[in-house]
């Protein structure tokens, strides 16, 4: 009952199998390394998103708003800004802008960094010349990406320091024209 192996149907040798397994493991390791590398690069690229995409747009927007204003004051909170109480030069979280209209009337706006709906937001509140009170909800949200926005006044220059979600920092400057 001894089975005779057909020579032509013989299996692979141990060396062949070792070689095949080694190469397969090598290929698998290379694929995994390539994938991990792509994941790392994607993470790095997305961590730059705030500085790359968001910050320049916020800068343009804030620069336009501040340039159009006639004056500004810095306050520690939205409430303080809306009631014009206790202006500060450093560590401000709200900026009150005053705009003079062509007809002699004036409008006001408050840009403030505040938590809302579980997220930190840079909100804009606008009070027109005929409005008797400030709106209770933001007129619009400028951005919800920064972890912190700090308003300060250094030698007469308005500085807006923004800290991004990954610890990145950028400081913009502006002055009313």
């Amino acid at each position, binding site marked *: 009952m001894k089975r005779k192996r057909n020579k032509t149907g013989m299996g692979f040798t141990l060396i062949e199998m070792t070689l095949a397994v080694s190469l397969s493991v090598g290929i698998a390791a290379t694929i995994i390394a390539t994938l991990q590398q*792509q994941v790392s690069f994607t993470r790095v*690229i997305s*961590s730059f998103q705030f500085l*790359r995409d968001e910050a320049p747009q916020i*800068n343009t927007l804030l620069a336009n708003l501040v340039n159009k204003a006639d004056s500004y004051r810095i306050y520690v909170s939205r409430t303080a800004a809306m009631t014009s109480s206790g202006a500060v030069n450093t560590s401000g979280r709200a900026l009150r802008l005053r705009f003079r209209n062509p007809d002699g009337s004036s409008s006001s706006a408050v840009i403030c960094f505040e938590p809302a709906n579980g997220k930190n937001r840079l909100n804009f509140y606008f009070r027109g010349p005929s409005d008797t009170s400030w709106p209770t909800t933001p007129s619009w949200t400028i951005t919800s990406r920064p972890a912190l926005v700090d308003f300060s006044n250094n030698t007469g*220059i308005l500085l807006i320091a923004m800290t991004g979600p990954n610890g990145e920092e950028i*400081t913009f400057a502006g002055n009313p024209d």
Partner: protein
Amino acid sequence: MRLSHHRSRSRQRGSALIEISMSYATLVIVALLTFKASVNAVSGQAWTVKQTMTDAFITRETALASRIPFDTLVGSSSPWPNHPTVSTSTVSLGKLPGGQPVTGTLHRTRLPDENNLSASGGSGDATTNPSGSEAWKLQSILTYTVGDRQYVKSRTVLRIR
């Protein structure tokens, strides 16, 4: 007939090894190309981010130059010393994700208008400059590096009194 079949089988086994080696080599090449493309994408991004940071910084510099009191500007401890004296300092431009600081080198100097009176560094006199007006060009030059390349950004503000 049997010998021919055996040879054919051997060739088949040998070609499998070559196929695996080729696929492995192709995979390595693809991995290297992907790595190179990713490195290019990240370095391009670093360039964009530094442009944003330096633009923001130079805006601050322009604002300060426009705002500084004239007496401070022409005083002995002026932030913009009279040319050819140049003040050089290392400045913080911001931070990258993770908190890594980004710095640059700021050079400042001020150049007199040639029609300034001699006391203000010019060659004008009562005939050419009867009002005794004084004009200075405030130059701020920011140098920074991205990778192994150095870049320069400058702004000039004219102040007159």
